[in-house]
């Protein structure tokens, strides 16, 4: 999350709402370790990353919903969830993300 702290701080000072998605767990082969993070601002700016690019688009959608609803949620991406999310990791691993509003 280190690399997105400055952007979060800037958005906060600009009064922009944001959401933070963090990889908390990886099963099998995953591109990024726990701690990889991405943040999305209410006007659609994106910083950081949580995979090799496979699921970022879907995470942006989830994050925008989180900003809208204020809900916190765990989201799982992986080949076993292809039907549910229609996106997966080409490496065959599964990543568990925690997405929350940046209200802390």
């Amino acid at each position, binding site marked *: *999350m*280190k690399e997105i*702290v400055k952007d*979060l*701080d800037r958005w*906060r000072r600009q009064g922009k709402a944001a959401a933070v998605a*963090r990889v*908390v*767990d990886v099963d099998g082969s995953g591109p990024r*370790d*726990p*701690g990889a993070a991405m943040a999305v601002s209410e006007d659609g700016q994106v910083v950081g990353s949580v995979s090799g690019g496979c699921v970022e688009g879907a995470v942006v959608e989830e994050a925008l919903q989180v900003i809208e609803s204020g809900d*916190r949620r*765990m989201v799982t991406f992986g080949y076993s969830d292809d039907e549910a999310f229609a996106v997966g990791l080409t490496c065959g691993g599964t990543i568990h993300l*925690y997405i*929350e509003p940046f*209200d*802390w």
Partner: protein
Amino acid sequence: MSDSTAIFDTLKAAIAAEEPVALATVVEGPGTGAKLLLHIDQTAGSLGNPDLDRVVSRDIAGELAAGRTGVRHYGPNGEAREEAVSVFIESFAPPPQMIIFGAVDFTAALVRVAKVLGYRVTVCDARPVFATTQRFPGADVVAVKWPNDLLDEIGHSLGQRDAVCVLTHDNKFDVPAVTGALATGVGYIGVMGSRKTHDNRTVRLREAGVTDEQLAKLMSPIGLDIGARTPEETAVSICAEIIALRTGRDAPTLTAGVGPIHR
């Protein structure tokens, strides 16, 4: 919210100051989103239950010391072997350090590659004409000192994640740099030079009292055998060697090879 805004502010300040800090967040179970931060023996925030806070504080300290990041499970009051609450603990260890001895062309390239990998880089050379911030704009510190003097000052702060690269290939500097580095807890010591330079240096190091066991810890000649020629390619081969040693992978090192390095 004012209390939790303080958590972000403390986290931001600690990261900027390169101080060890760790953040625990409840990601599943009662109190999802609650946070507890540990920064230099002080906690801030709460996971919503004093018993849970107490148990998790202790675990955060352990995870931070080990530089680990991951999810741990607890009962509602911090009980072990229960799964009611999932807590994500993220450790923010200070960046690893790389000390480069010798202000040469290879050094400039190694500084750049090391910065890409997140190292805090110190360049050290006893010659003030060469050891300048103009020549190494990316270095965090440029020290005009003898290697042993620098290591006397900062050697105690070097650990397993850190690296010392000796690029001078001049025995006058190499020998105090290597003996000084061997006296620290640094995880990687690489020493540049041709095989002839290496053989000659090994003799000098033995004369300086370095044991076979200590010699075996040196990566010399420095770097992986990937046919690197330019300073930039050599920098990549050095950093790749550091990664391979850390992860325990079997990569072809120049240390284990024979014959000319450039062929």
